[in-house]
């Protein structure tokens, strides 16, 4: 079956993604009319309430889901290839805990400004990134393992500060931050899209241009170097790019874990590990995965939204358990 579908797998994936987009637009608390979907999106239609729901609520949310899912999966794929560590993940570099600290400070100090939260989260993520890269530079850059270790250290440090602040604060503020950390696309607007999309496109374009270099880095630093790859500058460039992309996504969507870790693994199983294939596949699968998860989050419980992080983490652990059980038959 898989062999038969092989030549068409890209086409299949794209068609599946488009169908998913349409289905997700139509699903939600208010059921919309299928026949009105197209005219309401691109034209004037009679049902103005439906058009408003579509254009102001569902479309930005869908688009944000697409770019956020694609961005997280792309970052994960790039980091896994760069570090030759299959457990690398955009959140391993302290970005989520940095954003968490920023969000906490914004909620506690400036509760009246709604803009402050994503902004503070972004700067918190940036702070974490600077700390991680600083520690890694002290450690000598020998391997990306140094960066990962520095990331773990910074993560714990910033989480400790966040926990302390939340412990001291009032329950309502703590609730808000914790809920935000679990991830949601409810904050979607066109401004978020305008920030994340350029980051995503730059990352993807550079990833495609440097695909051979990234392929060589999958082997060893020595091999890459002997093939003429400037290992350190390339690693630093992509580290910064992925960190910036993830920071933007986290600032608007909160912490959506497991997408960056799980999707590249899935794509490697389905499409192979070459950089170009991995990047394209990860973006397509990542965006499809996230809009489905968001559709689930909006509809699973009546009149209540589930946090995205809860669903992605649940599905993620299930996926890795499945992988573990079949690893005996086929090496990853």
């Amino acid at each position, binding site marked *: 079956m898989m062999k038969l579908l092989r030549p068409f797998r890209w086409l299949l994936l794209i068609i599946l993604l488009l169908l998913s987009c349409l289905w997700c637009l139509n699903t939600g608390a208010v059921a919309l009319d299928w026949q009105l979907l197209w005219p309401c999106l691109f034209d004037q239609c009679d049902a103005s309430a439906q058009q408003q729901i579509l254009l102001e609520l569902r479309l930005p949310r869908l688009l944000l889901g697409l770019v956020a899912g694609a961005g997280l999966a792309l970052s994960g794929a790039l980091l896994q290839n760069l570090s030759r560590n299959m457990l690398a993940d955009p959140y391993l570099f302290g970005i989520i805990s940095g954003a968490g600290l920023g969000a906490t400070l914004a909620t506690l100090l400036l509760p009246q400004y709604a803009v402050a939260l994503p902004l503070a989260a972004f700067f918190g993520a940036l702070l974490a990134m600077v700390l991680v890269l600083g520690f890694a530079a002290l450690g000598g850059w020998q391997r990306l393992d140094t960066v990962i270790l520095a990331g773990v250290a910074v993560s714990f440090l910033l989480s400790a500060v966040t926990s302390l602040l939340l412990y001291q604060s009032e329950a309502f503020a703590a609730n808000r931050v914790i809920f935000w950390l679990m991830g949601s696309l409810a904050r979607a607007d066109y401004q978020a899209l305008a920030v994340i999309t350029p980051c995503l496109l730059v990352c993807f374009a550079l990833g495609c241009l440097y695909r051979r270099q990234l392929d060589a880095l999958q082997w060893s630093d020595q091999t890459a170097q002997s093939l003429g790859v400037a290992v350190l500058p390339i690693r630093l460039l992509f580290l910064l790019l992925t960190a910036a992309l993830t920071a933007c996504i986290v600032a608007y969507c909160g912490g959506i874990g497991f997408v960056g870790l799980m999707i590249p693994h899935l794509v490697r199983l389905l499409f*192979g590990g070459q950089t170009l294939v991995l990047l394209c596949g990860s973006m397509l699968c990542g965006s499809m995965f996230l809009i489905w998860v968001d559709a689930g989050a909006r509809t699973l419980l009546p009149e209540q939204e589930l946090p995205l992080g809860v669903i992605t983490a649940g599905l993620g652990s299930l996926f890795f358990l499945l992988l573990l059980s079949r690893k005996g038959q086929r090496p990853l």
Partner: protein
Amino acid sequence: MNLFHLSGLNFQVSIQPLLSCHNLSFRWHPHAGLQQVDLTLHAQDRLGIIGPNGAGKSTLLKLLAGLLRPASGEILLCGQLLSHYSLAEKARSLALLAQDTEQATASTVFELVELGLLPHKQLWQRTDQHDQIRISQVLTQVGLTDKATASVSSLSGGELQRAQFARVLLQGAKLLLLDEPTNHLDVQYQHQLLQSIVSTELTLIASFHDLNLAASYCNQLLLLQQGKVVAVGSPEQVLQPKLISEVFGRRCLVDSNPFDGKPRVTFAPGACND
């Protein structure tokens, strides 16, 4: 220096060595390292580096490939300082096959070999029809035609080594630096790989565990012991029974290989070491 005889007159033409290094040193430990290595290599020379474990064979190869920065001394490639080459120029002039334990398990043999194109391609250039043909040519040369689409993780150690060698060949460099190229290989492939280098115009520097392979396929040997060059010269000059017994700490006998007349070293087995 080469001496040409032309219509009765003697012309002395100096031919630039392909690679030379002077006074090359490197420390991998405060009390250990390579000390003052000098060598000169002309085009189509084949230099075998031999010596016990930890003598500095791999380090010397990495220094010559420009992967390590020497503590002192300089390396000249085609008359130019190696440190003045750009990364891509260096990769087009010399190719290194290192001893790696890591491998990208998700890639196929074809994708591994394709890496050899890297120094020849601009960022936006694709792998075209011509490149595909060259890749299948080198795959044929190492006998892996039927494994092109196989995953790297399904290969045996020897097959992986041959795939890596195909990658090095595709890199198209005139100078090959091979670290233990015959590792993991069956006897037939050991000879096939080395013969494929001898039959071309490539220049080779390789480290060897098997002294007899080194003697058969190299015209120069360099014997290292604890980072020092103990002997350098033709296999006949270097493979002296007394010297080899001293360096490797085991009694040995040197006669000549009945097939090619090159020196053949036989070490005393088991307890016969006195």
